[in-house]
């Protein structure tokens, strides 16, 4: 007689009388008769009755199993009953109860031989009435102890994991899960054997799984769950990132082709040639346009007007026109230029540059900043570089 039987017997008040040799045939047929007097009922009967009472309320699957009374596998002897069956029984018993956790926990120590998937174990630990494969394996008259009444194996009553508030509960649950994992690891070779394969449970149906889908806080417990969950989030995240990047790139490329060209016009009319006295250096256009208009006598004795760029050829500082000394002088490094733009002192390596100059149809002078003329390249003889008056 197994311990469970003894315990069950003790519970039912027949502690003194052992339950004799268990007969496997009893269970299935007599299960739906819970009303029998305790004295005459065997332990198995009592258990079956208890289970039936519990399962019929809530969980449909075990109930149907009970009703059909046709387990595909032959009802095993009590001693030969597989762990899966025992657990299924325990789970079925717990399904209708308000505090189902003890059922699972009490079953846990008995789970040594293995044959149970991790998911099942977890489901058991969670105490949720999933009733997975039990529909097929259910043996109504299994002698599994009625969990709620087992006094020794469940020292601690754990609420469902999701509702846990006491950290000690959580620790306990973790400890048990760890113990189970160890056992499973120890029993793995056994699983591979055909004996275990005989009891391979059918896959749980999808709606059942959905019904107990772990919420976010439980994802951590099940790594495969995490993987499954992460996948589509990752895809969505990368898609969003790629979209944002593409949008940003498009904006940047678009930025390179502005709608309006803010470049100021390169040509400007600076008035009639007669506006400039001989020898004048006009600073009117220095600030906005960056050139001086100079009327001067050139090397060949011609009276010419030209536009000198206001950037020092040394490092680009703007020189100042000093009328007293009749020269341009750079404040940065002291380069000096004559009125015709030729450098004569300081570090500037070459003369100031001239802009293109010409006459418009209305007789005004037009300066075009789009073209420059350098003396060191002999460009000052170009007719566009000066305007003969």
């Amino acid at each position, binding site marked *: 007689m197994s311990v469970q039987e003894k315990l069950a017997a003790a519970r039912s008040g027949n502690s003194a009388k052992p339950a004799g040799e268990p007969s496997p045939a009893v269970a299935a047929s007599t299960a739906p008769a819970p009303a029998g007097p305790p004295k005459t009922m065997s332990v198995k009967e009592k258990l079956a009755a208890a289970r039936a009472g519990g399962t019929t309320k809530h969980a449909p699957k075990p109930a149907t199993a009970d009703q059909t009374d046709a387990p595909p596998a032959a009802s095993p002897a009590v001693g030969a009953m597989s762990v899966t069956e025992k657990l299924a029984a325990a789970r079925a018993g717990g399904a209708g109860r308000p505090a189902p956790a003890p059922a699972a926990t009490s079953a846990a120590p008995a789970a040594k031989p293995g044959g149970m998937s991790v998911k099942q174990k977890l489901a058991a630990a969670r105490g949720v009435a999933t009733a997975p494969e039990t529909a097929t394996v259910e043996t109504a008259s299994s002698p599994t102890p009625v969990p709620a009444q087992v006094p020794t194996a469940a020292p601690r009553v754990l609420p469902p994991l999701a509702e846990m508030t006491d950290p000690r509960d959580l620790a306990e649950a973790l400890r048990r899960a760890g113990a189970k994992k160890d056992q499973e690891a120890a029993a793995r070779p056994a699983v591979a054997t055909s004996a275990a394969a005989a009891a391979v449970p059918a896959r749980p149906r999808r709606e059942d799984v959905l019904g107990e889908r772990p919420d976010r806080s439980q994802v951590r417990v099940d790594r495969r769950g995490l993987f499954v969950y992460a996948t589509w989030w990752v895809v969505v995240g990368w898609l969003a990132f790629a979209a944002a990047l593409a949008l940003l790139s498009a904006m940047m490329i678009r930025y390179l082709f502005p709608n309006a060209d803010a470049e100021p016009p390169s040509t400007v009319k600076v008035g009639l040639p007669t506006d400039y006295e001989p020898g004048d250096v006009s600073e009117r256009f*220095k*600030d906005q346009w*960056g050139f001086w208009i100079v009327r001067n006598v050139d090397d060949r004795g011609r009276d010419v007007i030209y536009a000198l760029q*206001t950037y020092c050829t*040394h*490092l680009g*500082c*703007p020189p*100042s026109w*000093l009328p*007293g*000394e009749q020269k341009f*002088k*750079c*404040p*940065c*490094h*002291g380069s*000096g230029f004559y009125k015709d733009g030729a450098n*004569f*002192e*300081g*570090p500037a*390596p*070459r003369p100031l540059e001239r802009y293109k100059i010409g006459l418009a149809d209305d007789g005004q002078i037009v300066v075009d900043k789009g073209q420059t003329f350098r003396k*060191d*390249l002999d460009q000052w003889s170009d007719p566009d570089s000066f305007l003969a008056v």
Partner: protein
Amino acid sequence: MHQDVTPEVLAGLAWYYLLASALNAAASGYVAYHEMVAEGASREGLAPRTRRFPEWLSLAVVGLYGAALVTVPFRWLLPGGLTVAYGLASLANGLLALTAGADAAHFAEVHGSSGTQADETAGGGPSLDDHVPAVGLGGPINRTLWSLVWSVVAVVFQAIGLTYFFKGPLILPRFVRAGVDYAAGPTTVFLGATLLFAAVVAFRRVFAGGLVAFGIVDLALLAFGLSLTDADFREIVAKPDNVPIVGLIVLVAGFTWFALRRAVINDARREADLPVLEALEPDKVLTWPDLVYTELICMVALTLFLIVWAVVLPAPLEQPAKATEAPNPSKAPWYFLGLQEMLVYFDPWLAGVAFPSLIILGLCAIPYIDANKEGSGYYTIAARPFAYVVFLFGFLVLWIVLIVLGTFLRGPNWNFFGPYERWEPHKVVPLNNVDLSDLVWVRALGRAKPSWALLREAPGLALLAFYLLALPPVLLRTVFQDYRARAGLTRSLTTVVLLLMMAALPLKMILRWTLNLKYVIAIPGFNI
């Protein structure tokens, strides 16, 4: 508009000379009372001192300065409070200086009469009274004499300060200023700095002595104080931009002198087969508290200093930036003014890119081309004169002097102005420069320059080829023969080329000043 002295300037100068006087009074007290033990000397065997700083004197000086410090913030309570404070402080200076001088004379008398007083030396051995400077710095000094000298200087400075305080317009004579301005020029400044540097290195034993150094400090204080009476000088020196340079001069001079002094002492000690000063120091000190305390104190002091500086000297913001108008003069940050000065003499790519890169590369190369194993871990000049002179010439003359020149002596249009000269934007300085090709073809040969660029620049190209290709082998066979034997061809060649590059700057400057030479080679885009 430019007044040489205003009441504010006079008041400032009065306090300036008060501090100068305090410095000299402290020096007098140091020489008179302090147990002076020279660097590297041991106290062992020296009889106890006969000199003590009188307690009443310390009480009096601290009390007078304290009273002056208290009076300054409460001067609104007391009419003429500032005068009272100044009087108290100057009284403390005079008291300290005169008492120190008198006591020094007294100690000398007691010491000379070989002792009748209780705390004197017993026996005829040397005592802490007899100050013998460190090895290499000359014989014993006459403490009485030097205490009296610094006392007199302190009293004179205090008298000058009092003159300014009572509005005595003591200003630098005009002819002195005119003379200095006349003599000043880039040439004089650069050559003067070079000569001064050579003199300091040559007569380093003289300069390393504390008395000579302090005398130079006094002269500098006097010269600076007198120069401050000139409005133009004051305007440039007191500009918030330029104040760091004044501090930089003091710091550079101080640290250079300190290193020079240690080197002179070490050299003399090595000659006398004594361990160098650094060997006498303990090898290791504790991180806590020695290092951490020092760092903490430095941190606090520096923070305080920076805060005071930031409050007292506001940031020198100028007019809003404008693309077509540059401030005149347009100056780089002070630490770049040496480079900006180089830009006057060289093409931008050379002075702005090539030379700075070469400076950095050359500094990086020093550890690899240095074949001299002497002088590691201690100051010395005699063991490595070449390294010392070359490095300090590059740092002091070619960098610091150029910064000072660019800061104080370059005015509008980058013209040179004397220290007391008005920054006149219309000053006309003839800067007509000619290229080497002009000199050769036009002036020497009396013909027109060839139009073909390579022929036109042939003299410059030849000169460059000589300088960079012919000179290194010649130098390696003559001056650097020993170095080449020690260091090998690669290192010695690198050293010589780097040296020639370094020498190119002063050479080009001299050519500019003497021949108005603009470029040796003037090919557009490649000017040297």
